[in-house]
């Protein structure tokens, strides 16, 4: 399983590299400059795809956490923990790219808008997830605790969203239910960037998980070596 996953991570990594080379060209050169926001709007091609990658990763954490609690297989815990790391990475990207856009357009780095608050709170929940990992005493217990937090964190997301939306909101709605309000050239760049970011997230996740599997294999090999090492000398 580890070897095939490693192969997949190479394939996805190559695709992500190609995608990431084309994405800036599409976003910065091909897509036309937005009339009102000007160049600041360009961050949209990296900000929103990061957000999609983040949601996808956190959803995976939720799914793998449930699978772990039901089946108690270590594999699911590895997948959940790695997906949480990838999600946290893209969540940080969203939180970093957002203010770059917000400063020229809204005139402030940060506003307490629903979407921003949700992202920040999700970031906090998954930082707590990482803390649970490093402060646990027993790996099995840590895996169960993290699975519990992963499930609760994901279930909490819609509630955070609705409560903060009722509280205050001013975030632009790019993808509305009825129609996507983008001209064709921007849409092409946007869809391509989304695909590139998703592939990148998948590549990082696959590599991270295969690394974790390799570490496990090394540990078991070491343990086996130690056992056979104590038997031979004498």
């Amino acid at each position: 399983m580890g070897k095939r996953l490693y192969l997949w991570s190479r394939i996805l990594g190559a695709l992500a590299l190609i995608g990431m080379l084309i994405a800036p060209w599409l976003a910065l050169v091909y897509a036309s400059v937005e009339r009102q926001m000007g160049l600041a709007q360009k961050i949209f091609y990296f900000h929103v795809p990061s957000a999609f990658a983040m949601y996808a990763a956190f959803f995976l954490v939720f799914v793998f956490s449930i699978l772990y609690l039901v089946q108690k297989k270590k594999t699911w815990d590895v997948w959940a923990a790695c997906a949480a790391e990838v999600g946290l990475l893209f969540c940080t990207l969203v939180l970093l790219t957002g203010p770059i856009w917000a400063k020229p357009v809204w005139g402030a780095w940060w506003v307490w808008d629903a979407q921003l608050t949700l992202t920040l709170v999700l970031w906090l929940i998954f930082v707590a997830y990482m803390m649970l990992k490093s402060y646990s005493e027993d790996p099995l217990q840590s895996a169960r605790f993290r699975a519990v937090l992963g499930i609760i964190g994901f279930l909490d997301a819609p509630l955070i969203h609705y409560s903060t939306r009722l509280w205050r909101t001013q975030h632009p709605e790019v993808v509305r239910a009825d129609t996507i309000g983008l001209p064709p050239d921007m849409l092409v760049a946007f869809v391509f960037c989304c695909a590139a970011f998703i592939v990148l997230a998948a590549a990082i996740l696959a590599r991270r998980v295969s690394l974790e599997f390799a570490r496990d294999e090394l540990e078991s090999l070491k343990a086996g070596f130690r056992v056979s090492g104590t038997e031979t000398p004498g």
Partner: protein
Amino acid sequence: MAFFFRQVSAVFWKDFKTEFRTRERLSAMCFFAFLVLLVFNFVFTPDSETIRNAAPGIFWVAVTFAGFMVLTRSFISERENDCLTGLLLSPADRGAIYLGKMLANLCAMLLLEALILPLMAVFLNIDVWQNMPRLLPGLLLGTLGFAAVGTLFAAMSLKTRLREALLPMLTLPVLVPALLAAVESFRGALAGASLSEISGWTNIGAAFALLFVATCALLFDYVVEE
């Protein structure tokens, strides 16, 4: 089903009785919440419009911080003499143990709120009694949501190396919608809004409480499992 609720009430009464006989948890946390209330009086200008606007927030900060004490105590006391192991070895359903403990924590926190509210009315000079019927739903739902998530996380955090220090870090981010709903419905009720006007907030509070009472009751088994 009736058997399940008998188990819940047995755990609840056990916690309630130990608390009632020692009273150590309740008196300490009431004093603590009172101190938080006073500190806010010194931080903001007393008798100003600012502090009256901030009253709902001050109340919930005091209740939340004192609430963390309630939650940790409820599991620290179980750790002495391995009481929790005994409780888990009993044929009781794990969900029932969770619900019993959660209800005991809920009661302790409601008692605390009942003591803090009049004090706040006096110190911050706000009209609590007239708005009581409209305050109650938000208050009850917010406390239930807090107790639901907090009881599960307290059981979790006490088993980590950081012990109770991890509890606020786990609970506060998850608690954001419940706190927002509780504070905003409190604010609305104080401003004289009708129940239907603040129903948006009480609905969120109710959704949070229901969702997490059910989820945490299901997940508690995995937290206490050895």
